[in-house]
């Protein structure tokens, strides 16, 4: 039976074998043909050689998550199929067992694998003579003497074969491939197209039209769409918001964002500084914020650990920023440096000693990431607080296709900045003036009449050190009032969302990047007769107490779903509302939730009576 436009494709190979570029080209070709994609990568902390894979899900309706099976697996090496079980410290069994019944595997014919060795009689095998086809392509361009230099191009041959088997429009792929080679490299584009075409033709000719049952067909375009991942959404939102100063210290998976900004700094006038460590990164950014420029820094858990001290200084000095983007990865310490996790919720909430206001927003997808990042800069300046955008490796690196951002209704709010003309008439400017709302009008250094002092010590209204207990009390209340104010002013619609019916027998509770898998998993559950709704908490601080209270007080069975060990959001909800979850589904193997894991996890609870479910990629 032929299936159309519902397809999960995977390419695996050693790091350095170019899986990213072909997967992204394939995805682009699909989007331009009116199809929708969800593409995520898993890789090792390694430069060359370790196994990595890129998964591309293609659907007629936009997918919000991935699934754990593969319809067509492209193996650039043996390990992708069989794993590394022959090594002294094996790490995985390969992907052959993930291939769906009726699915297939594209691999190098010269591996001389017998059909029996795959241990599957329900899948199709597509051996391709990678090297022979590559040599043919190179001959066409007179480069066959440089085979070793162009060996990486077998990835493109495999892409071509994938297009052939799924019978997709080759011209769309041609366009995507050529875009990767502009200017002086244009000739390389021709060479790659030729290689892809050879893979395409070979697959069609050798295996026949009916060899593979899943076909991809162009659909009418639903408006202009872009292929975007979390780091890009953050970076573009920073530019839109008028951020003028970004700092970073190299760390996976945050660095891509800073490199994106640096590569566009000339056109957008943004200073990007690579600091000597994350201590410096946050402090530079706070210095820039105090001096009048919107600023930010981006990091992951290990870097954020170093930033704790600086975060406290930004808090007590009521700096108008920075915005700190925290891309969570599996910890503690180095943990699983290239894998995802949602285990820094409590850390973000409590990092640094003492008590001070901070805002924490945890967007659930790439669209929310864009708008939340933009808002973060407004909050930083309006409330004069550090703002943490809490996301993760999964959201950072996963591509989705979405309509272009329409930023017309986004307004920059720089907060209460005193004017030099007002300062001229007053001789008594106080940077930390006690006000009813807790927010003091701020001067920008350099303004005449605006001289102020700022200190990480407790201070008086002028910013001079004091240890007086009455001033301490006033200043603590002033600062903490700002977060209460933010909680009152910012509408609940931004802080949390109840997806699905208002009332359902089962309420799923989650936050951050698992939103997509939960939403997709809910559809599977519904098809199976299990009605659910989903409470997504987006603001960690200020926390939407009332909204969550109301949403959950009616809920019959509440299941927390979190990419961490201890269900941290469930704990926070209990702290804030007194409401405890009935069940938890957690995953802490460094891999993101898939659509089917949500379905299976909820089923385990409902049908099998399991109270706490741990799901695992293994």
């Amino acid at each position, binding site marked *: 039976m032929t299936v159309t436009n519902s397809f999960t494709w995977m390419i695996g190979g050693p790091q350095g074998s170019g899986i990213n570029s072909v997967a992204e080209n394939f995805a682009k070709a699909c989007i331009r043909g009116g199809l929708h994609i969800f593409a995520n990568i898993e890789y090792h902390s390694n430069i060359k050689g370790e196994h990595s894979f890129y998964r591309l899900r293609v659907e007629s309706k936009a997918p919000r998550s991935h699934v754990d099976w593969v319809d067509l697996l492209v193996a650039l090496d043996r390990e992708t199929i069989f794993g590394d079980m022959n090594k002294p410290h094996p790490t995985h069994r390969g992907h052959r067992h993930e291939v769906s019944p009726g699915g297939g595997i594209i691999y190098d014919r010269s591996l001389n694998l017998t059909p029996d060795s795959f241990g599957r009689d329900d899948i199709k095998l597509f051996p391709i003579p990678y090297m022979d086809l590559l040599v043919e392509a190179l001959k066409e361009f007179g480069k066959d003497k440089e085979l070793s230099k162009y060996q990486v191009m077998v990835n493109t041959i495999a892409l071509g074969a994938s297009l052939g088997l799924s019978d997709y429009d080759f011209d769309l792929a041609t366009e995507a491939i050529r875009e990767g080679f502009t200017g002086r490299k244009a000739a390389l584009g021709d060479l790659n197209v030729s290689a892809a075409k050879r893979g395409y033709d070979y697959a069609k000719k050798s295996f026949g039209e009916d060899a593979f049952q899943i076909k991809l067909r162009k659909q009418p375009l639903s408006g202009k769409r872009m292929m975007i991942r979390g780091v890009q959404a953050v970076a573009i939102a920073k530019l839109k918001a008028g951020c003028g100063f970004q700092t970073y210290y190299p760390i996976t998976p945050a660095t891509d964002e800073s490199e994106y900004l640096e590569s566009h700094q000339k056109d957008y006038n943004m200073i990007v500084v690579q600091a000597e460590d994350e201590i410096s990164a946050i402090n*530079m950014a706070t210095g820039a914020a105090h001096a009048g420029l919107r600023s930010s820094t981006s990091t992951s858990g290990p870097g954020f650990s170093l930033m704790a001290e600086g975060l406290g200084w930004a808090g007590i000095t009521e700096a108008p920023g920075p915005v700190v983007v925290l891309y969570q990865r599996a910890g503690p310490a180095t943990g699983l440096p290239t894998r995802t996790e949602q285990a820094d919720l409590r850390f973000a909430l409590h990092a640094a000693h003492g008590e001070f206001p901070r805002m924490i927003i945890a967007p659930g997808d790439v669209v929310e990431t864009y708008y939340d990042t933009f808002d973060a800069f407004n909050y930083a300046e309006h409330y004069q607080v550090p703002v943490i955008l809490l996301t993760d490796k999964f959201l950072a690196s996963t591509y989705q296709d979405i309509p272009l951002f329409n930023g017309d209704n986004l307004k920059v709010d720089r907060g209460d900045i005193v004017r030099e003309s007002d300062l001229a008439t007053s001789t008594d400017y106080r940077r930390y003036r006690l006000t009813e709302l807790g927010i003091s009008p701020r001067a920008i250094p350099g303004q005449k009449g605006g001289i102020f002092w700022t200190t990480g010590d407790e201070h008086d209204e002028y910013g001079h050190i004091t240890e007086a207990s009455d001033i301490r009390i006033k200043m603590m209340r002033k600062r903490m009032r700002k977060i209460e104010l933010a909680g009152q002013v910012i509408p609940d619609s931004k802080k949390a969302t109840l997806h699905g019916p208002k009332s359902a027998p089962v309420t799923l509770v989650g936050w951050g990047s698992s939103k997509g898998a939960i939403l997709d998993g809910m559809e599977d559950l519904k098809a199976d007769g299990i009605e659910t709704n989903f409470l997504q908490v987006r603001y960690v601080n200020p926390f939407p107490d009332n909204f969550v209270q109301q949403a959950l007080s009616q809920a019959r069975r509440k299941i927390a779903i979190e990419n961490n060990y201890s269900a941290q959001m469930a704990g926070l909800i209990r702290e804030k509302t007194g409401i405890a979850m009935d069940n938890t589904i957690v995953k802490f193997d460094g891999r993101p939730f898939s659509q089917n894991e949500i379905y299976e996890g909820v089923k385990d609870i409902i049908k099998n009576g399991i109270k706490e479910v741990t799901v695992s990629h293994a």
Partner: protein
Amino acid sequence: MLELKTYRTQVHNDWCPGCGDFGIVNAIQMTLLEMQLEPHRVAIFSGIGCSGKTPHFVNAYGFHTLHGRVLPIATGARLSNPGLTIVAVGGDGDGLGIGAGHFVNTGRRNLDFTYVLYDNGVYGLTKGQASPTLPKGVKTKSMPAPAIIERVNPIAMAVASGYTFVARSYALDVRHLKQTLRAAIEHRGSAFVDVLQTCPTYNDINTKEWYGGEDLPVKAPRLYKLEGSGYNGVVADPSTDEVNTKKGNALVKSFEWGDKIPIGVFFKMEVPTFEDQLALRMPALKEKPFVEQDIYNRDITPLLDELT
């Protein structure tokens, strides 16, 4: 009209009587006056410790930061708001202990600002522990036992790190200090001034009398001025080998310590600053700093189109 009191605040000063810090803060105020820098165009940054209180005593924008982090915070302010004259100050524990990594990397950047090290060999505010510049084998009165690790050499570290103006002065020679600070502030690039300073409460070794050489067989001040001694640390042509020669000379000179201690300019060279290099990348920076530009209405549509 600007006068000395323009640069003073009414904040109660709680430094110990006779503290070398007084000399430094006075010299900073006198230098600002001499240079006719209006207070609102100046920002003083400090770390933590006795020296950390400096900004509160100076009528200018004042940033009392974290222990060891004065340079990163000053760097962020400098880059975003380059119209300000920035003087960063801190103790030797602040800059060369907890902040050593920032000290080195700030030198590499060569931003146009001045860093003044209050160098008294002890952690004063925590009651006199050995600091990074206290020589090995020395025991001040507050230490239970003599130091058993080597001291760092701030001048040598500054030269090796890339500061393009490296000088030493003395807190109790306010005239020399003022001259040195002025030269440092006027220098285009990262200027470092190591200010030898007494701590009358905890450092009973490197006292005013010790600096005055009163313990020497032939009583004579230990400190002597490089200017007029035949030493010249100024690089005339940074495109030549002269740079390495002068750096080498400065390193050798910086290890002179004991009966004779040089003060003055060890090394000076004019090369493009970090800001100059950023402006090459972003020509708009040459016109005016981003803090004065409208960067709040950027057109991001080309970036979105790139992703289609």
